[in-house]
């Protein structure tokens, strides 16, 4: 048997923007085991529900993660709306859908850039992030914020998008789509990129289900699950495909995310065509009483929100289960048996969001 070495990986590591620590047990260049150590970003924000009232708490939960901040807010307010038993106006539902899909595009582009950076393709990283700035500009124009833009409220949304703005955005998306096609050509057809991604980090469909993978990680293993089909916000009126792939490797995960970006553009276009006029919020009175569950499809997979209220303005319990948390087990599984040089790439392909995981 070859000698075993333990290599510490993280918490501060050049390819990881976020702190996570792994002890990699190596035999020569092969990883035989990976022992994670987490908790570097733990803040304890679920407990903060005892100190902030249910309206203020929205601003805390939006800061669970800055990348899908809008979706965290949306999951929480939809759970609270269930407790209050309110129906929000249709226009608000559509606006939420549009912002949610824009967040997905922004998040996937961010991930593609980081992936390019991880395998050392600096120019590609810069190009994807340049494209991503266009989405951030649109966020800024419609809400005033670039990454954290707090437009949700219990009972609707805070800001409206006029018709001209929506039309303009759709036009921007046309331009973005063209540029993205050029970029995806590199991601999917470049020989060097393929040699880094193909056949690396296999996760069989059985393992994906057994280990509880979520989101694109699961869909890349051929399992067709997408929480958007439950029809929260305006998704029940919109038709879209669930993108899956049969190849189960890093390349498949890249492919699935890229196709999802195009799918998101498709959803936004439909939503802009169908959006009805009218109010954007309803007033919600009194204090909540009861409990509710809400499942939301985030860019990284399914997130679950649980709220329990007791008739006062402070909630008893808020629980968030985020997709990266469930994706950690499949990650540890794929790490076993891989080469040391592939470790950063594998960690990136689950699209890790450590601050979601540890809250």
């Amino acid at each position, binding site marked *: 048997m070859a000698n075993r070495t333990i290599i510490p990986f993280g918490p501060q590591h050049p390819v990881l923007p*976020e702190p996570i620590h792994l002890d990699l047990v190596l035999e020569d260049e092969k990883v035989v085991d990976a022992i994670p150590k987490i908790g570097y*970003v*733990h*803040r304890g924000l679920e407990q903060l529900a005892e100190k902030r009232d249910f309206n203020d708490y929205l601003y*805390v939960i939006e800061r669970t993660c800055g990348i899908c901040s809008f979706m965290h807010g949306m999951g929480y307010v939809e759970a609270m709306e269930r407790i209050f038993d309110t129906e929000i106006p249709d226009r608000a539902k559509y606006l939420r859908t549009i912002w949610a899909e824009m967040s997905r595009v922004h998040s996937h582009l961010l991930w593609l850039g980081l992936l390019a950076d991880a395998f050392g393709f600096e120019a590609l990283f810069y190009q994807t992030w340049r494209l991503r700035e266009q989405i951030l500009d649109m966020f800024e124009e419609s809400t005033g914020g670039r990454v*954290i833009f707090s437009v949700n409220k219990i009972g609707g949304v805070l800001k409206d998008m006029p018709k001209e703005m929506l039309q303009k955005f759709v036009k921007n998306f046309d331009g973005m789509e063209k540029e993205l096609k050029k970029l995806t050509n590199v991601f999917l057809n470049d020989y060097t990129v393929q040699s880094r991604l193909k056949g690396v980090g296999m996760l069989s469909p059985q393992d994906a289900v057994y280990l509880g993978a979520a989101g694109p990680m699961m869909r890349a293993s051929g399992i067709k699950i997408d929480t958007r089909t439950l029809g929260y916000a305006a998704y029940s009126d919109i038709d879209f495909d669930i993108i899956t792939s049969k190849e189960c490797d890093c390349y498949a995960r890249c492919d699935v995310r890229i196709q999802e970006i195009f799918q998101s553009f498709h959803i936004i276009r439909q939503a802009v065509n169908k959006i009805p006029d009218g109010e954007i919020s309803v007033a919600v009175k009194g204090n909540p009483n009861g409990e509710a569950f809400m499942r939301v499809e985030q860019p990284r997979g399914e997130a679950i929100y649980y709220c329990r209220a007791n008739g006062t303005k402070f909630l008893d319990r808020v629980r968030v289960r985020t997709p990266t948390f469930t994706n950690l087990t499949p990650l540890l599984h794929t790490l076993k048996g891989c080469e040391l040089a592939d470790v950063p790439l594998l960690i990136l392909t689950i699209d890790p969001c450590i601050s979601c995981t540890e809250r």
Partner: protein
Amino acid sequence: MAKVSKSPWMLHYDGSSCNGCDIEVLACLTPVYDVERFGVLNTGNPKHADILLITGGINTQNKPVVEQLYSQMPEPKVVCAVGICACNGGVFKDCYNIIGGVDKVLPVDVYVPGCAARPNAIIDGVVKAVAVLEEKRKKYKKERGEKA
């Protein structure tokens, strides 16, 4: 902006941030904002770094990490706290696991407020940090009796 005689390198560490500030720090490096035009380069190695850019507050688990990173950096060095979390704890101030802002464990030279801090603000902070670094370098050299 003070005249800069060297290209300062920057080390970014994510304390316990929500990622909002991190992606803005990364956005600074990419074409639209591009801090590299000030000669600032992002590095992953604390031993090469002059500016330590920290996002997010300090908690019990990452306190030793932050201290270690700082101690590994060569003198003179500057600490720049990005985002209101890093300045004083921000929205998470009352969380049970948050000790407070970065200044609880390290001497912070530049504070960049905002939640999330905008890239323009971050660049302004970095440029200020470059000026502070220059001053520190002069002082450091004087103490050692070298020519500035």
